[in-house]
């Protein structure tokens, strides 16, 4: 007799059931959410039909407004309306000063770490602002797809550092989104073009946005997608083209000393003209300040091209560098993918075509291509495509290291290393009887601590007193597939250990995030306790499914009777308690089952090596005799 099972949304137990997964492009100017439906990846529109959600959040005493309505109010209420928050993610107030960001907001100066924007609704961190954007996209997706999301792939620029990635992850947590993976934007674009379906080749992703330029070289070989090199310029984009055109208009109109509002009008005129010239060959210009007509003229394509030529040439330098770092030549390149709104400019396409000696791929909307690629990867990670052979191998964009004597940085993991990656380095004590060691984790390419970004500090305590130089302290860096770092330190003669998930020194603490979750409006109605219980229940169910399928695959071959019986007992226990309402019981049962399957999991990994290499001749390693 078939048993009827009633499952709550998001708690599906049937392994082959389609799990709802989305790709999210959390952009500086606009954000998008996409999903694979009936085998096709597409961006999801809001009820009003718009796909792009302006990444603008307005705070008021009445609540939070996100998107087009907020964007409309940006001039009326600049202090409480936050735009381009992506540029603030993972930054300190100091960073912002150093980067020369001119921001219209007031910051709370009392917090040295995460900048807090003062609004009428209280002090808000950039993570919370991004969280609001993600919440809107999540509910849009859940309404459109008709169910609770299993998870999402969120894209980040390839050059995002650990702090910026961590901040993005935290924002997803606030929006109650399970992140399957943080995916680099260029990699997502390559997926959208289905480059993974081509047999072999080297591909260039040319990504020119509003304010940044990024180029990545990817290699596809036997279904493995490998990032070979990335380069870019984080202060070069379509905005610079607008400025070039605006400067020309100002000169043509014979204007001097514009105030901010007038300059804004010129900029707007310049941008519109640039956009229209993607289809026309000439556009009339009418510059008005308020109601007054100041100047009339025209801009043709040839003039525009001359104005922006130098800017486009600037993007070709990083292209050259990336090609060189990748160890390939222009003749080796099999395809060029265009990403970002600024690649609509015709001259950009022409110059890129000239340089790479081939017509770039432009048939997917450059604004949507990243979200679509993310949706495809989310579909794979949700387990909806079990036979999928494609694999992405990404790299870490920046070197990671430790502070050593004299304010110098010792690199542990160099940039462009394929992730996940793990490296260990041994250190020793420099004083007799030293019982603690301070570990300072840094990111960047420079040699001095002060020129790199400080990610975290922690202390390994309880080292038994020894003579200077006798202790062996092994510090291990591990970067996971999301590009996130964790660091552990161990004194190997005594076994004393310390471990940190690297939370940037100025990032949000686990407690702060917890508190924000409690405060956040969407959870006010939901009992925190009930939410925690539901999470444990889902965790328990996931673990049961995972163990079940592991047993089905390898239980016979890798376990003896006693071990199998013990695992069964623990599974039975978890099955009994996981639908009941005692959180501690569920936690305990999960812990027990994890412990019981520890050796099994390790054996499966070992057996996996043989399976993975099944198609290759295995030759025994033999230690050669010295001749």
């Amino acid at each position, binding site marked *: 007799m078939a048993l009827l099972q009633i499952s709550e949304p998001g708690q599906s137990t049937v392994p082959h059931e389609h799990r709802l997964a989305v790709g999210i492009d959390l952009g500086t100017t606009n954000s998008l959410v996409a999903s694979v439906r009936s085998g096709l990846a597409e961006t999801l529109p809001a009820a009003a039909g718009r796909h792009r959600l302006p990444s603008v959040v307005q705070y008021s005493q009445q609540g939070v407004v996100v998107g087009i309505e907020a964007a409309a109010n940006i001039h009326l209420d600049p202090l409480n309306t936050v735009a381009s928050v992506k540029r603030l993610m993972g930054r300190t107030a100091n960073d912002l000063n150093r980067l020369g960001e001119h921001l219209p907001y007031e910051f709370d100066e009392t917090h040295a770490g995460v900048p807090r924007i003062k609004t009428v609704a209280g002090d808000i961190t950039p993570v919370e602002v991004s969280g609001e954007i993600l919440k809107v996209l999540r509910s849009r997706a859940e309404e459109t797809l008709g169910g609770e999301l299993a998870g999402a792939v969120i894209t980040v620029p390839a050059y995002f550092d650990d702090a910026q990635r961590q901040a993005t992850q935290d924002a997803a947590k606030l929006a109650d989104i399970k992140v399957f993976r943080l995916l680099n934007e260029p990699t997502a674009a390559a997926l959208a073009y289905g480059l993974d379906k081509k047999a072999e080749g080297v591909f260039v992703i040319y990504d020119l946005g509003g304010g940044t330029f990024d180029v990545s070289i990817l290699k596809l070989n036997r279904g493995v997608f490998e990032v070979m090199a990335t380069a870019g310029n984080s202060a070069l984009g379509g905005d610079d083209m607008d400025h070039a055109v605006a400067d020309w208009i100002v000169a043509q109109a014979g204007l001097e000393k514009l105030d901010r509002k007038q300059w804004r009008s010129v900029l707007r005129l310049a941008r519109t003209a640039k956009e229209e010239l993607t289809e026309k060959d000439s556009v009339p210009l009418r510059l008005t300040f308020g109601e007054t007509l100041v100047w009339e003229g025209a801009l043709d394509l040839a003039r525009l091209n001359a104005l922006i030529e130098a800017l486009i040439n600037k993007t070709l330098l990083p292209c050259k560098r990336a090609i060189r770092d990748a160890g390939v030549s222009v003749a080796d390149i099999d395809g060029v993918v265009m990403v970002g709104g600024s690649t609509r400019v015709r001259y950009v396409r022409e110059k890129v075509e000239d340089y790479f000696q081939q017509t770039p791929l432009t048939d997917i909307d450059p604004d949507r291509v990243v979200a679509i690629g993310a949706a495809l990867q989310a579909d794979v990670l949700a387990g909806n495509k079990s036979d999928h052979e494609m694999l992405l191998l990404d790299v870490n964009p920046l070197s990671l290291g430790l502070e050593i004597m004299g304010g110098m940085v010792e690199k542990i993991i160099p940039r462009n290393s394929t992730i996940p990656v793990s490296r260990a380095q041994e250190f020793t004590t420099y004083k007799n009887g030293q019982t603690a060691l301070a570990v300072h984790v840094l990111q960047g390419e420079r040699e001095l601590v002060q020129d790199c970004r400080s990610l975290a500090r922690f202390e390994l305590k309880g080292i038994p007193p020894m003579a200077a130089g006798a202790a062996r302290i092994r510090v291990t860096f591990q970067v996971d597939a999301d590009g996130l770092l964790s660091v552990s330190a161990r004194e190997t003669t005594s076994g004393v250990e310390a471990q940190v998930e690297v939370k940037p020194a100025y990032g949000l603490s686990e407690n702060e995030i917890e508190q924000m979750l409690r405060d956040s409006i969407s959870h006010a109605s939901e009992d925190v306790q009930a939410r925690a219980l539901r999470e444990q229940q889902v965790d328990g169910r996931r673990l049961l499914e995972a163990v079940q399928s592991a047993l089905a695959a390898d239980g016979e071959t890798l376990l003896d009777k006693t071990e199998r019986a013990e695992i069964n007992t623990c599974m039975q226990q978890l099955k009994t308690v996981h639908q009941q309402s005692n959180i501690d019981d569920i936690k305990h049962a999960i812990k027990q089952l994890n412990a019981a399957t520890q050796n099994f999991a390790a054996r499966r*990994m070992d057996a*996996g090596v043989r399976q993975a290499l099944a198609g290759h001749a295995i*030759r025994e390693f033999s230690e050669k005799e010295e001749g």
Partner: protein
Amino acid sequence: MQADPGKNYFELFGLPGTYTINRSDLTARYQDLQRHFHPDKFSSSSDQERRLSVQMTALINEAYQALKDPIARGQYILSLAGSNTDTETDTAMEPAFLLEQMELREKLEALNDNPDAQRLTAMAESASEKMEIRVTQLHDLLDGHERNLEQARNVLREMQFIDKLQREIESLEDQLL
């Protein structure tokens, strides 16, 4: 580079411990191991297995980096044989080689303020020729009938010098981009 004791890169890839290696075979093995162990393949597994998969892929990446690079692979083979390549004090290098390196370095320094693409290319080509010769020598010293670890070690040290020079040439070439 520090490997976890007891884990042998060659064994992991199902290869004999020879210096001679077929690059495309190595890459194919690497890809198949990644295809099996990458965290993307474990997204619905238990936390335990996910953690193991991260550790495993990190090890596979580390092994691949060490095996595919002619210098790192040589050093790894020496370290398996109990010979430490990091200590720089106890081996005397050929005076002729050191002299040549000093001259090349001076030549490079002269180009520092005014990089010249043609000269840099010529230097880069000559450096990679020197490297090729030593790779061939290592094949004989490590895999030949008469294994000679001491000499292999010297050749490797020379390769490190050449490698450093190559990097400096590259960074000057970067300035021209």
